[in-house]
């Protein structure tokens, strides 16, 4: 039996959904650590999904993320509890923090896993490589603890989670020396969830023609609660910010619904979105490669199809 910790991040005081996905997969055999305080309802939520203990690490200079502060505080805590495995979401923070934390222990880290098993208490995972053009089995070797980051939306929420005791406790933590510290946070123009965590994504390609035209996608996004993305062609043409890019040199995403508008489907784009559960493609070219990956393909002009679709969604959702 392995001793497992899941590190959770919070967003506006709420635990990130990827934590619940991981806990569900670990089926009631893990503790949770969080930086700072966590409201009682969130502790209950973690317990419902299987957290045995919820450790709240509290100390000076841990209110904001810093690679050093978080890894100093967490490494001391992990040592004190002799965890064998540490899991976290493959979020902006997780992807930065966990490799550094693993290196403190001289230990290995499996990044961005889309599935895993813990048979006999030993981790074996699946992860995409080459932006998802290929999948491979990943195993960890060398000194413990072993570290794993899990891609948000990949495991899915457990239908019938095994509950844990959810015993909450404060832990005194020391951030130690922080040489790279956040001085300021510049908020994003859009308050939408990030592409990597979005449940629905609407992406525009070269056929969008300019940045202004993205408003037709934004209008539909507002109706169905989607995040707007873009292809590399659209980003390189200056129609959209790089933070919106889906594909091999952008973000790899796996939402429930991906709507590709005016995207031909270059191999590097398909790699980044092919694991979406349902794909809708709208393109004037009936032979566009995107149609080979689409569950529902509409051969047509996005500028006429998207506004009609927005109206249909409004009707369907009673908006």
């Amino acid at each position, binding site marked *: 039996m392995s001793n497992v910790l899941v590190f959770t991040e919070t967003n506006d005081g709420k635990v990130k959904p990827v934590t619940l996905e991981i806990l569900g997969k670990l089926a009631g055999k893990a503790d949770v650590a969080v930086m700072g305080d966590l409201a009682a309802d969130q502790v209950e939520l973690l317990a419902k999904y299987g957290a045995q203990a919820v450790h709240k690490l509290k100390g000076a200079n841990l209110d904001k993320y810093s690679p050093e502060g978080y890894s100093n505080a967490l490494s001391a805590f992990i040592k004190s509890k002799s965890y064998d495995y540490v899991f976290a979401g493959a979020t902006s923070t997780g992807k930065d923090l966990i490799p550094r934390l693993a290196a403190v222990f001289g230990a290995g880290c499996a*990044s961005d896993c889309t599935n895993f098993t813990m048979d006999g208490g030993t981790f074996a995972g699946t992860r995409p490589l080459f932006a998802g053009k*290929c999948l491979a089995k990943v195993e960890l070797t*060398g000194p413990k603890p072993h570290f794993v980051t899990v891609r948000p939306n990949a495991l899915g929420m457990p239908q019938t989670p095994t509950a844990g005791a959810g015993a909450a406790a404060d832990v005194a933590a020391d951030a130690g020396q922080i*040489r*790279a510290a956040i*001085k300021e*946070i510049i908020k994003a123009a859009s308050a939408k969830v990030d592409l990597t965590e979005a449940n629905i994504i609407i992406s525009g390609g070269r056929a969008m023609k300019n940045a202004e035209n993205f408003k037709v996608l934004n209008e539909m996004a507002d109706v169905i609660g989607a995040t707007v993305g873009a292809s590399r062609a659209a980003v390189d043409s200056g129609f959209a910010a790089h933070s919106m890019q889906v594909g091999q040199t952008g973000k790899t995403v796996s939402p429930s619904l991906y709507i590709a508008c005016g995207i031909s489907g270059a191999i590097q784009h398909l790699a980044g979105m092919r694991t979406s559960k349902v794909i809708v493609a709208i393109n004037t070219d009936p032979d566009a490669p995107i149609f080979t990956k689409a*569950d529902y393909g509409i051969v047509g002009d996005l500028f006429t199809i998207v506004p009609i679709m927005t109206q249909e*969604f409004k009707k*369907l959702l009673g908006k």
Partner: protein
Amino acid sequence: MNIFVCVKQVPDTETKVTPNADGSFIETSSIKWIMNPYDEFAVEQALLIKQANAAANVTVVRVGSVKDTEALRTAMAMGADDAILVEANDNLDSYSIAKALKGAIDKSGKKADLIFAGKQAIDDDCLQVPQILAQMMEMPSVAVVVGFEMNGTTVKAKREVEGGALEVYEVNTPCVIACNKGLNTPRYASLPGIMKAKKKPLAQHSLADVGVTDADRRVKYSGFALPPEKPAGKKFDAMDATKQAEIVAQVVSLLRTEAKII
């Protein structure tokens, strides 16, 4: 000032990847190799510093197969002063690569003031090497950097996080900076630059030379396979304006009744 830039050679983004016969890696025989796209931003940032500070020396370091030294020659053609190659298989894990990079930097005899790298390599997509290297070098790091200013020994780096928000870090050199697209516009190598690059020093080491052995492997890969193909979907022709409304209504309805998504 000594600036090191870590680069990796990766298959071109348009490459169709196929697993090799025993599934231990991908078939590499017919691949077109390029410098990892994110590393171009790292090289460019180092060269921008060199432009403002003639005393700066830019060394590019790569761990990988010798096949060709495209990435290093490209970086030197862009303006880097010298290069180090640590010869290794292309499927090394992040920990071994970081240890080899540290070994190569230590062996150069130069004290690193700044280390640049791409935020991730687009082959294994791990996003680990800059952070592991920083920890091994006992340096602070800022990753996914889209804005960089340097004033004396103080660096202001903008890190992009979820949704395009920016965390603005202040950090003193020496430090590790992992670069993202959008940081700068990488220059093209000029013809004289390409000619000059051929004469620039390129040191070559084995993994053993820089203190890395098989025992340093932390992540094992196996069973490389193509992702399962999706069954063919439904395709509707809506080029005819009279049919558009009906088809779109049908697709939206299918998203609820069949796909059960909306």
